[in-house]
């Protein structure tokens, strides 16, 4: 039944709440040759619209999903295979595939990430944990979101990394569903909170993946407790230079209506149509919680006062020799992509075209491939 030469393309699951998605259109025709990372189709959920990138290469032998139709998560919508695989094998594969999807994709099979809460010195912190999907648990990876974000910023990342690692995604203090009080709104304070969480969750050592402010927190953590950090992956990271769009920070902090928040969120993406109603609603729900505005103001004052980043850690991190990957969206309007080279030869640096500040969402396939490569084989000091 399992034919290694035939690769299924299924409706993806982006985040815990997604149960179905609308296939809005195919970006490849049946029979087209597909390379790893090629854009295959577009899927719309109530939260975000995104392209699905090929996780394998091959010929798009069958297209089963109809544009404009809603499919449940994991439904088979296309098949990739090499040209020499006979049609009969593909037909057999499709027939066999339908069975588990309809027959009882029970709760047991649904091994997606789960929300947990950890009691830490920084208060109750929420996190998602996804065990490695290929048997052995693999190394621990800890994902740290940016200013005003939460662990759902990794909705395209968690499952992909779980193929070879045990993935944790944390809501930093003041964010998501974690405690809204910030004992110390500096990078040192947040780094302490991250280490406190690692203690509480029993993580000795982890590969840290940080986005934006979370990148700066990762760097601070690597400097404060080098023995606990296996590698750094810095995505559109703060802490690599002084420039930052202060208008974004102020606008995000101040906005309390849909009409005010939507244009602010649009600056996060190269393709502004990605900002859907649900994304704005979810952020408003977060921003309305008591204590959030005070937390964001405290962070903004400590980290980004006077329109510049307060702490630049590039030099110190470069000196550690820690395996480091830097990824940026070329059209980042919050922190300039020029910061991608701040670590020089001490890091591998990749700038991805047609993506903005939320590059891990906008170019998820490419970023996930880079992260897997970096975490899987952390080679020191390779420059490209």
């Amino acid at each position, binding site marked *: 039944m399992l034919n290694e030469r035939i690769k299924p393309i299924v409706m993806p699951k982006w985040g815990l709440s997604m149960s179905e998605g609308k296939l809005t259109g195919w970006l490849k025709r049946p029979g087209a040759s597909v390379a790893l990372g090629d854009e295959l189709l577009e899927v719309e959920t109530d939260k975000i619209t995104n392209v699905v990138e090929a996780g394998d290469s091959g010929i798009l032998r069958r297209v089963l999903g109809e544009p404009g139709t809603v499919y449940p998560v994991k439904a088979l919508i296309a098949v990739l295979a090499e040209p020499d695989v006979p049609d009969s094998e593909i037909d057999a594969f499709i027939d066999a595939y339908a069975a588990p999807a309809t027959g009882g994709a029970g709760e047991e099979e649904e091994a997606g990430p789960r929300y947990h*809460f950890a009691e830490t010195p920084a208060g109750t912190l929420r996190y998602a944990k996804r065990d490695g999907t290929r048997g052995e648990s693999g190394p621990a990876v800890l994902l740290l979101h940016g200013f005003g974000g939460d662990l759902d910023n990794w909705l395209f990342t968690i499952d992909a990394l779980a193929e070879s690692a045990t993935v944790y995604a944390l809501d930093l203090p003041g964010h998501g569903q974690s405690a809204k009080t910030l004992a110390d709104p500096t990078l040192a304070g947040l780094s302490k909170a991250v280490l406190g969480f690692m203690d509480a969750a029993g993580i000795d050592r982890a590969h840290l993946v940080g986005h934006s402010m979370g990148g700066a927190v990762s760097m601070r953590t690597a400097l404060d407790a080098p023995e606990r950090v296996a590698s750094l992956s810095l995505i559109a990271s703060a802490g690599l230079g002084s420039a930052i769009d202060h208008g974004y920070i102020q606008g995000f902090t101040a906005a309390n*209506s*849909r009409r005010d928040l939507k244009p602010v969120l649009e600056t996060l993406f190269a393709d502004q149509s990605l900002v859907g109603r649900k994304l704005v609603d979810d952020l408003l*729900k977060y921003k309305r*919680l008591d204590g959030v505005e005070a937390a964001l103001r405290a962070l903004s004052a400590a980290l980004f006062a006077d329109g510049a980043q307060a702490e630049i850690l590039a030099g110190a991190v470069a000196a550690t020799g820690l395996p480091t990957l830097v990824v940026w969206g070329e059209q980042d309007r919050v922190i300039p992509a020029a910061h991608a080279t701040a670590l020089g030869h001490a890091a591998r640096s990749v700038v991805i075209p047609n993506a903005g500040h939320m590059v891990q969402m906008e170019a998820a396939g490419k970023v996930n491939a880079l992260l897997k490569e970096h975490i899987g084989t952390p080679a020191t000091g390779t420059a490209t």
Partner: protein
Amino acid sequence: MSRKISMKQAINEALDLEMRRDPTVIVMGEDIVGGTGAHGEADAWGGVLGVTKGLHAKHGDRLMDTPLSESAYIGAAIGAAACGLRPVAELMFMDFMGVCFDQIFNQAAKFRYMFGGKAETPVVIRGMVGAGFRAAAQHSQMLTPLFTHIPGLKVVCPSNAYDAKGLLIQAIRDNDPVIFCEHKNLYGMECEVPAESYAIPFGEANVLRDGDDVTIVSYGLTVHRAMAAADALARERVEAEVIDLRTLSPIDWDSIVESVERTGRLVVVDEAHPRCNLATDIAAYVGQHAFGALKAGVQMVTAPHTPVPFAPSLEDLYVPSAEAIAAAALRTLAPTGTTPRSIAA
């Protein structure tokens, strides 16, 4: 942390959290304590439908059972508000408002204005509205337009548990009198609600569904009928945008006009009687401010101009249905002079 709770639980939680946060918050009303602690008391109910159940055990005498005299205790709540407390007075059925009009309309609503801004009246008057509960004509009205008519009052009518909690917390923190209308047929409806405190600002409508063909505006229970109508319309390839007003005073004119400027068509749904209600108000506003955008006459779907019937079969026909809303939307799309099809919603 977020979990599913009912609108009734959400209101209870909002009262509990605000009483914990602010010692000046008090709660008063008929049977809201339900005789807790009294001799022979078996099971304190906490309000006629149990909304305040359990609060007396947590906050003691900051909850007060009052005599069956709305004019007396609503007046007392307003006086206490003017003197520095933040009372939440439960009127049970909003229909009883009539006996305390002077306290609300002439006193609470006017203090800030007549005392030159030196007096504030941070009182919340909450109570049940709406038909469908088999409670007959004197316990079933949607009287929201009476309150929106009076300057100085803020008027809120949530459609779900999440909004009810955030809007009630905002109402308690607000420094003006707020009339908080709870549709009794929504009390059991559940949705995801954070356990933490949060406030939803007044005057910010909620867009529940995006669509480019027709705008449907409503509030309270009929929001759910509007959503069912939008689902039925989508099957006919008509995409309706559904706006839940959440607060009626202040009202989010900008969201309504922005949507109509895009869709060119408007259906306003109001469970109140058809004369001088929110539907006529919104239709008139759009006619004045977005006439050029309209591609068809504005459609209003309201209750009829009769008292709420007690006969269940008639009461079920009384509240605007999803079918009636969908039919109104199709009327805005039909070429002039033609009769649109009706569809099942």
